[in-house]
């Protein structure tokens, strides 16, 4: 009985782990560019296939800045920026989840009517200067020191990193 219970607890503890891996596998993705698949999540790892721009991919795992994907021509690791996560259909599902989380869905009615407004080109063209709002905005201005204190509170540490320069494929 005791052993059985232990086994049960052990099995139960596995569920979340399994669940995490499951959640990742099968996520849809699209290739943003032609790229080479690697056997490991490193740039100098051996090639294990390739995919072409626009190809549908199965995202299996994420590790740091790398994704393990299944493509038509093999399975392997690729830099995460070569892949667009999700598809249009999962996108709208996400939107649904977000809407529920923000209290906009659930009752089937729009909860807030006052908060819903867009900001179209026409709105911007017709806009009139609002001195009170600018003053309010300016009242929140923080000093560099206050910014540093905030960073310290979050244990944020600056690192040396040069500004990125345009890549060769950068469209003009």
């Amino acid at each position, binding site marked *: 009985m005791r052993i059985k219970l232990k086994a049960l607890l052990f099995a139960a503890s596995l569920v979340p782990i399994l669940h995490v891996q499951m959640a990742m596998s099968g996520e849809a993705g699209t290739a943003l560019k032609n790229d080479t698949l690697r056997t490991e999540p490193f740039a100098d790892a051996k090639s294990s296939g390739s995919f072409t721009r626009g190809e549908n991919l199965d995202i299996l795992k994420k590790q740091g800045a790398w994704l393990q994907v299944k493509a038509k021509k093999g399975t392997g690791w690729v830099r995460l920026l070569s892949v667009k996560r999700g598809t249009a259909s999962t996108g709208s599902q996400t939107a649904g989840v977000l809407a529920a989380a923000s209290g906009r869905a659930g009752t089937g009615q729009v909860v807030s009517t006052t908060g819903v407004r867009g900001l179209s080109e026409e709105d*911007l063209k017709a*806009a009139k200067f609002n001195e009170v709002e600018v003053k309010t905005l300016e009242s929140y201005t923080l000093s560099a020191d206050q910014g540093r204190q905030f960073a310290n509170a979050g244990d944020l540490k600056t*690192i040396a990193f040069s500004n990125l320069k345009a890549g060769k494929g950068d469209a003009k």
Partner: protein
Amino acid sequence: MRTSIRTDKQTFTRNNLLISGLLAALLGLSSMPGAAFDLKGVLKDAVEKQTGTQPAAPADSTAKQPEASTPAATASSEPAAAQTGDAGLKEINWKNPSKEEEIALGREIAGNLLGAAPLVKDAALQKYVNSVGRWVASQSERADLPWRFGVIESDDINAFATPGGYIMITKGLYRKLTNEAQLAGVLGHEIGHVVKKHQLKVLQKQQLLNIGAGFLSSKYAKDNKLISKAIGTGAEISARSLDKSAEYEADRLGLSYATRSGYEPYGLTEVLQIIGQTNKSDSSVALLFKTHPHPDERLVALGDAIGSKLDNIKGGKTLENRFYQLKN
């Protein structure tokens, strides 16, 4: 008051001589493939505005005609705009604006934007966004600006920067974010626009063209009020597209600043992934998609720029635990 107008006219005439030369240079540029913006279109627009030949739409004409014909009357009917706009902007050195002039110009545009969408009434939220933004801006090349940030009341997904360091993000975009690194990336992109003076340069070029076009029609060019109106310090500048390469540059800078600040470098790319999943026909992204390259293109461009440069960057923070949750 009168003397100030007179000196303006004098400087204006002087400027015209300078500017006609500059204009010629600019027009030469426009024949280059991928020139920064539609120079011909702007010139045409400017000429039509100045000469009044524009076949204005009914809504447009009611808004603009009275000001053109009776400048004095409108000055009193729009006290707020007249006070802030004219006082700070009339004497701008458009060739080489000072930091103060740049801020005054940005303030004017920010005020118009806020007229379209006011700040979210949540002081804790605004303070939080200013804290993150100020820290990221401190890692930029223009840490000396009085940076200010605001979340504005709109369900659209967008963010705006105006010259001098006024940055606004919509509530709709904020709602899509899940951690501080993503917010840092978004604000970093806008900070990049300000650092590189992308919007300011568009305004400068437009101003030079306006003056140049006015030179062709001296009768209207001497109308100082009309000129200052044509500068375009309204919020419509925010509805205009920058050159694609300016957006890519802001992406690269935004990611660089957030990374230097100690954040997880991929915050901005995560946001681009999220926005890219939004249906194109969704009205909340209409203006964003109209004025920016598609998120997919931005991801590819960023990926090319990054290459292996982030491979050794470790320990960046996402700080989802202290990410400020919207109240509604």
